[in-house]
């Protein structure tokens, strides 16, 4: 028995040690969220769902607004299933901000989906599948809590992914020829998505997105709970600096669905902005100026153009709906 237990113990310790080592290699290629759980506390944040995760380049905002190292903005947006406004996201944001900062910049992106929820679920159930649910560590590197709870592949895959991304990044040509898509999470929180922009492929992806949003429209409804937490988030961030409420551009086919899902959305946001004394910057009228990978997300090059425009609008501190 002792021999058996000794062998099992040695094998188990070796496996645990191997995992501890592999965890150190996790980076932006690991998955679409991991790095955001490893970065330190921040002074300025971009908040929202995958639209802003892919569509707002923090480095461009920094450069246009001249945000220096300490105040450089960090993209802390996740995705609609993980970072719709609610208790979990609020806690995560609270844990990500430097408590002492008072001159930060906060871009809160909003759309009708981020303040809606599945009509069959109670408020305490809507975020139980969120990646932020019941997390204790938001800023530790390596973040073993995240990897244990959320990384559903063998941890050796972390190395494989890293090798794959290194090969792809070394040969930029391969990125432009990519079929399907490849994602990489940058250290500043931006999710880079490299995908084929072949018109038929994009059309198909847009149709799929329209289909899924039509399903969401029949299943979801405006959530008072989410709206309350959006308000609380604004109030929290206002204590730490300047807050901008931003509605990002989106493909017209999805905008039509959004408008029929929540026709008074803009009015509601203008009221919210007025009540909380923040600026509301609405970009939906310029939606046709950009190209999208699937109707919902800005194409990486267009996201750069959009980020410049957003930064300039912030610079001008307009509080009106875009003409």
């Amino acid at each position, binding site marked *: *028995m002792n*021999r*058996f237990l000794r*062998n*099992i113990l040695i*094998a188990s310790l070796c*496996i645990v040690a*191997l*995992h501890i080592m*592999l965890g150190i290699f996790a980076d932006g290629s690991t998955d679409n969220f991991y790095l955001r759980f490893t970065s330190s506390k921040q002074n300025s944040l971009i908040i929202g769902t995958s639209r802003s995760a892919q569509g707002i380049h923090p480095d461009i905002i920094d450069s246009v607004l001249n945000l220096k190292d300490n105040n450089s903005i960090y993209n802390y947006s996740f995705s609609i299933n993980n970072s719709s406004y609610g208790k979990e996201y609020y806690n995560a944001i609270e844990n990500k901000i430097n408590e002492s900062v008072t001159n930060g910049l906060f871009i809160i992106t909003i759309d009708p989906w981020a303040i809606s929820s599945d009509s069959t679920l109670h408020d305490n159930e809507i975020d139980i599948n969120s990646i932020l649910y019941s997390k204790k560590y938001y800023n530790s590197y390596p973040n073993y809590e995240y990897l244990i709870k959320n*990384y*559903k*592949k*063998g*941890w*050796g*895959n972390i*190395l*494989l992914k890293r090798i*794959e991304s290194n090969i792809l990044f070394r040969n930029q040509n391969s990125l432009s020829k990519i*079929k*399907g*898509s490849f994602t990489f999470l940058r250290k500043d929180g931006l999710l880079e998505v490299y995908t084929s922009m072949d018109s038929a492929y994009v059309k198909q992806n847009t149709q799929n997105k329209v289909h899924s949003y039509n399903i969401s429209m029949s299943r979801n409804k405006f959530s008072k709970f989410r709206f309350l937490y959006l308000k609380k988030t604004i109030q929290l961030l206002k204590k730490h600096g300047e807050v901008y409420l931003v509605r990002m551009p989106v493909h017209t086919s999805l905008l039509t669905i959004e408008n029929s899902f929540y026709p008074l959305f803009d009015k509601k946001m203008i009221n919210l902005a007025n009540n909380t004394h923040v600026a509301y910057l609405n970009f939906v009228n310029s939606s046709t100026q950009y190209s999208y990978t699937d109707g919902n997300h800005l194409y990486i090059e267009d996201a750069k153009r959009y980020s410049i425009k957003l930064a300039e609008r912030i610079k001008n501190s307009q509080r009106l709906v875009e003409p």
Partner: protein
Amino acid sequence: MLFNSIEFAIFLPSIFIIYWFVTKTIKQQNILILLSSYLFYGWWDWRFLSLIFFSTVTDFLIGKGLEKNEKPLTRKYLLWISILINIGFLGFFKYYNFFIDNFIYAFSTLGIELSYQSLKIILPVGISFYTFQTLSYTIDVYKGKLKPTKEFITFAAFVSFFPQLVAGPIERATNLLPQFKKNRKFDYNQATDGMRQILWGFFKKIVIADNCAVFADQIFNNYNDYSGSTLVLGAVFFAFQIYGDFSGYSDIAIGTARLFGFNLMQNFAFPYFSRDIAEFWRKWHISLSTWFRDYLYIPLGGSRGTNYFKIRNVFIIFLVSGFWHGSNWTFIIWGGLNAIYFLPVMLLNKNRINTNIVAQGKYLPSIKEVFSMTLTFCLTTFAWVFFRAEDIHHAISYLSNIIHPSTLTFPELITPKLEMVYTLFCIFILLLIEWKNRDKIHGLDIASYKKNSRWMLYFIIILMTITFGSFNQNSFIYFQF
């Protein structure tokens, strides 16, 4: 509780330590097994423990009744009470909606519309397995093959033994029950080999089955978007998914039982190396095939009698076997197809020509053996399409799309492509290791290897599991049966 869960990773060592270091007598060990088995099962849904308990009490009392009564008629009544109760549970939980829906459909085709709402019935996990296990006890006691046990705890532990409770192997009372009555001592070689079998089971489940599932699901769910050759590949992925999933579960179950000093029956014997369909059915889900053979096929007359009786019996056993898997016509057709495959082999009296190990003593099979194995694999994979499909229309459409010139092209790479390539590589490694050990009890039965080779192989398998494995805690396919 799933084998591939963190809960089980805590549960198993804890029970193992208590079992060997705290309990002192067989009775204490059996009580521990019983309690831990109920905990294991109740983790999924504690309400259904009452079903197992009721089934256990019923068969225990009927066993005692059979011992006391010598009158043939009374004994027959007792046997039928047990059969009706056990099959009644199974019938209600598993087949109630199927029969009602088909009944209503049959009437609607005659122009009579009946209104009835199907009940939302939850299928208790493992009910098909433990029902058959307890039935085997009663039938064996009735036939006088086994003396009924007088100790309730022993019997209850036998019925609910956690390693094989929810997905088999379906143990015979004649094999497993006596082991609960014997003194069990820790055996290093048995436990070490059990660990090897567990490791191999996890490799098959986590690396093979769960990765194949991604592509099989993608292809089966979007079969209109893919070329014929990709659909063929999808069926092959499913063939390995179901093999990895189910035989992986059996390996983990048998290996776990060995850690506690029990020997369960072999459930898979490298079925994809079979040279004909009869050999395949001697090697696939052995515990169920032999259960049907012993308790249904032989009582029906088996392969004796006229060709009519032979054909009838073969169809009965395969159709019932198909229906056992689920209340869907797809399973019945799957069973029927296998009966059709089996008939020529049996009628030509060639069902026992391949009883030896394929290419025994050789590294590689002959061309004839390769051809036979490939043909058998193609036939079973064709039948698996019905097993996997949502309904008959799905299966037929899927197969129709294969009959297309695009079947002669190279299959498309499905996203994620890298994962697809390494999944194919892992299948190759699985086949390589199983081919090497095809004359052994399980794929990693390598006790006879030199120490360095053994550790090298452990290292490779662990590394592959860590690198390519999916740790999504996906349920096992056979839980639904």
